[in-house]
């Protein structure tokens, strides 16, 4: 990644780390940025250079030791005083983590964030970010709320009976959900305060490699971190002004009676489950043949089957073309295959884009990719050496725990003199559709690409609860091994409690454990998860060279199936 720094003093380029290290050990190198890889004297790294200005509306709650004298070898710029060691734009998962940890490592840190709103925009956001305010947390609360209808149904088989069928009051849910969000945003503010991070409300914009402007006030920083996240993307088609996105869907004034959800990703499926559980009539429109592109094929098939059985209607290979509003206020969705009418709401869950507009990035030379994501190296550094980026704005793995990992690694890199690269191998994740999905490692398709020869173990069964409830709920579980090493390279599950279960097994997959390790682990009984440690016979073995063992590719594919 080439640098495009404005400072004339800089002669280095940002490249892969070994080159970086070699470059920066040359002592006569003039620097205009703090370099974590340079062998600075301990005093300097542990006690960051800091210029303390008394800003009228902030006060430092921690007493820091004054900066030690700079080593004369390190160039004039290290003696430059900045308002902060780190200025973070965006107080979401990545930004708060990086800021907190940096502050705990002794840095002086400020963070800016837009004022709170449940709906994000160029001018609204809130401390906590997408995850806390309009993502993970409210989503999960809505999933909890919507699951109860299924539980009421299950409970009939266990002897429970209701004089009247339970009904749902949307406004109670919204009020309680919003109260919880307020509580959490308050907690995040306290977390920042308790770590000694200065929180500034307003819209941050980069002025130069060391300066951020927040609604007219300027702050200088040794390092700038961009962690502004992403926002829902809705393509512009006729009638798209009638469309709601996930932000709005989490804060509707009333429950949809009939809703069209356009999209086949996790957000579309989660909302389909939520509204279906709350007894809306749900239709999902996807461009592809199947939902959840990128997921394991068998999981894709299983989850749509289970969701269909719960009453969700899927319209596949249909692209949205227009939305029409009729006189009675209902909406129709015109697709490549026809028009479906009578929707109270139409939601597009058609992707999210990084929030990189109007941040001053182009002007300062921070490179973006074609999706508008900030390009970073393995240490989360942008093309401008003093500017870094973590979280959804970099569009790597858009998950809160990954943003936390990136933020934590950055704090170590910058302020612990421990250059740390986030590791993206075997990151587990979940889709909170109903039934939910948990996964870690590779899909079968990816495993074949990477390993050639693989062994696949699957289980597809009716869980104990369903034998009594009488409902058609099933569970699907899958292990994928590298045939050669017998290491479990992929683990997938779709069924009740999958996300909780897969978190535990993710440790085993990350540790590179083998099928023998799994088999040697005694099960907990009676549970669904014990199935993962009692899979005896491979469902299929895929061999690149058909003569080496087992069936040919076409035979194995024919044998495959849930």
């Amino acid at each position: 990644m080439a640098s495009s720094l404005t400072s004339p003093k800089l002669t280095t380029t940002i490249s892969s780390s070994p080159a970086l290290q070699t470059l920066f050990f040359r002592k006569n190198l003039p620097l205009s940025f703090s370099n974590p890889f340079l062998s600075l004297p301990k005093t300097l790294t542990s006690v960051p250079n800091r210029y303390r200005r008394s800003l009228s509306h902030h006060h430092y709650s921690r007493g820091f030791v004054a900066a030690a004298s700079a080593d004369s070898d390190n160039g004039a710029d290290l003696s430059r005083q900045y308002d902060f060691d780190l200025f973070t734009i965006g107080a979401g998962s990545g930004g708060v983590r990086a800021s907190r940890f940096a502050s705990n490592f002794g840095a002086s840190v400020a963070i800016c964030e837009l004022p709170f709103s449940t709906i994000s925009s160029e001018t609204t956001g809130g401390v906590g970010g997408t995850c806390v305010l309009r993502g993970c947390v409210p989503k999960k609360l809505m999933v909890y709320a919507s699951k109860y209808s299924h539980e009421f149904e299950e409970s009939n088989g266990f002897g429970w009976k209701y004089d009247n069928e339970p009904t749902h009051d949307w406004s109670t849910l919204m009020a309680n959900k919003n109260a919880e969000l307020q509580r959490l945003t308050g907690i995040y503010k306290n977390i920042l305060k308790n770590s000694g991070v200065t929180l500034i409300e307003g819209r941050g914009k980069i002025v130069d490699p060391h300066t951020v402007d927040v609604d007219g006030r300027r702050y200088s920083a040794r390092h700038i971190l961009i962690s502004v996240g992403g926002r829902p993307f809705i393509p512009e088609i006729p009638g798209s002004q009638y469309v709601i996105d996930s932000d709005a869907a989490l804060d509707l004034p009333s429950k949809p009676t009939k809703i069209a959800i356009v999209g086949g990703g996790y957000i579309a499926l989660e909302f389909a489950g939520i509204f279906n559980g709350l007894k809306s009539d749900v239709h999902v429109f996807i461009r592809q043949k199947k939902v959840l592109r990128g997921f394991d094929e068998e999981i894709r098939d299983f989850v749509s089957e289970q969701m269909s059985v719960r009453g969700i209607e899927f319209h596949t290979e249909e692209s949205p073309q227009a939305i029409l509003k009729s006189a009675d206020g209902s909406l129709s969705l015109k697709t490549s295959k026809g028009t479906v009418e009578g929707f109270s709401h139409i939601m597009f869950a058609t992707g999210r884009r990084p929030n990189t507009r109007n941040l001053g990035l182009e002007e300062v030379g921070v490179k973006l990719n074609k999706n508008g994501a900030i390009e970073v190296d393995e240490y989360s550094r942008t093309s401008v050496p003093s500017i870094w980026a973590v979280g959804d704005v970099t569009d790597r793995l858009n998950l809160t725990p990954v943003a936390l990992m990136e933020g934590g690694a950055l704090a170590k890199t910058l302020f612990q003199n421990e250059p740390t690269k986030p590791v993206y191998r075997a990151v587990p994740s979940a889709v909170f559709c109903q039934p939910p999905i948990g996964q870690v490692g590779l899909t079968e398709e990816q495993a074949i690409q990477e390993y050639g020869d693989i062994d696949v173990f699957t289980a597809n069964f009716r869980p104990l609860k369903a034998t009594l409830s009488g409902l058609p709920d099933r569970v699907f579980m899958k292990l994928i091994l590298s045939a050669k090493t017998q290491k479990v390279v992929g683990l997938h599950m779709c069924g009740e409690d999958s996300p909780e279960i897969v978190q535990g097994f993710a440790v085993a997959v990350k540790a590179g454990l083998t099928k023998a390790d799994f088999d040697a682990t005694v099960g907990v009984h009676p549970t669904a998860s014990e199935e993962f440690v009692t899979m005896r016979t491979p469902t299929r073995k895929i061999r690149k060279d058909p003569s080496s063992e087992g069936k040919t590719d076409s035979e194995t594919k024919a044998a495959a199936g849930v």
Partner: protein
Amino acid sequence: MSRKMLNDGEVNQTNEDDAHYDFDLFVIGAGSGGVRASRFSANFGAKVGICELPFHPISSEVVGGVGGTCVIRGCVPKKILVYGASFGGEIEDARNYGWEVNEKVDFNWKKLLQKKTDEIVRLNGIYKRLLANAGVKLFEGEGKIVGPNEVEVIQLDGTKLSYSAKHILIATGSRAHRISIPGQELAITSDEALSLEEFPKHAVVLGGGYIAVEFASIWRGLGATVDLCFRKELPLRGFDDEMRAVVARNLEGRGVNLHPRTNLTKLEKTEDGKIKATTDHGEDLIADVVLFATGRVPNTKRLNLEAAGVELDEAGAVKVDEYSRTNIPSIWAVGDVTNRMNLTPVALMEGTFFANTVFNGKPSKPDYRDVPYAVFSIPPLSVVGLSEEQAIEQAHGDILVFTSTFNPMKNTVSGSRDSSVCSRPIR
């Protein structure tokens, strides 16, 4: 009739004598351990016979059933009742998520019990099929040992069948123990608890182990008044102390009345058909049902083990070595009757390893390290590895403990007071 016998190792050497054994293996008891050992041994080529008492949800000296405790009167029906009982709390929580549910939701105990019975009968059938599919011959009746290579099966009509076997496996499991206090005949054990005709509006549970805790949770979840009496300060002796305290707190939070350091001294019938239980603190508790969850003892009394000289320990469990072999070379034992770790997956492990040792030429010892398990209280407890107390005792160095106590997200809106605790002692 004759089957190929594997010929590896000293355990199972073929010689001319073999031809005259009726079976390579005869198993007494078709529960988790017995069925697993039988099937796997048969799969390795052994000719296997197994006997089991006739099916009944409530066990006795003369009734049991294929599937054993786990399937018929343990793990499975217990879990079904826990599911049933959990809905109570869920329905409560649902209100705060916006659901409008009747003030009082009706619960049909008989329906739940009937469905439970349907399920265990179905599983009993499945286990019989598993045995048949593996080619294992199933005899219904009470098995006894006659000699090191001879068993006897007393059928229902009283006729006795005698069989010779190269190896005998004892897998008769265990049964609930009743303490002998005056009026003990008024109390029930877990067997009866899983098959109660009427739902107990008020239950007294005596015991501090997982069975006591699970039943307390089940009945409380279904709306009963529950008094749980146990001898120690906290239930679940042997578990991590911190976790015991969490379980106790959660039980109390759900409305179970805890009586620590309490024993029952007598039971008496009252005029209106209830039971008066007197504690050693002089308190009287009036209950519809009194459950003794005061331990389980191995089923070894009627096996006639003396005839072969099989040694038992003080608790009446069959003594075995690491390969599950008794002091008699041709007699083995797995599962609860050996009182090692009384869990179904462990019995399965012991049965599997037995089959590998005896019929697959691969002598292997079951590994009891880091066996995970759960207590299905509501909310449940799950454990793997050492408690903090054990870790301190066994650690040659110091230990680090990481804990996390939190109100799970679901409860922030539902208002439930359960607390979740994770604890991780590290050496």
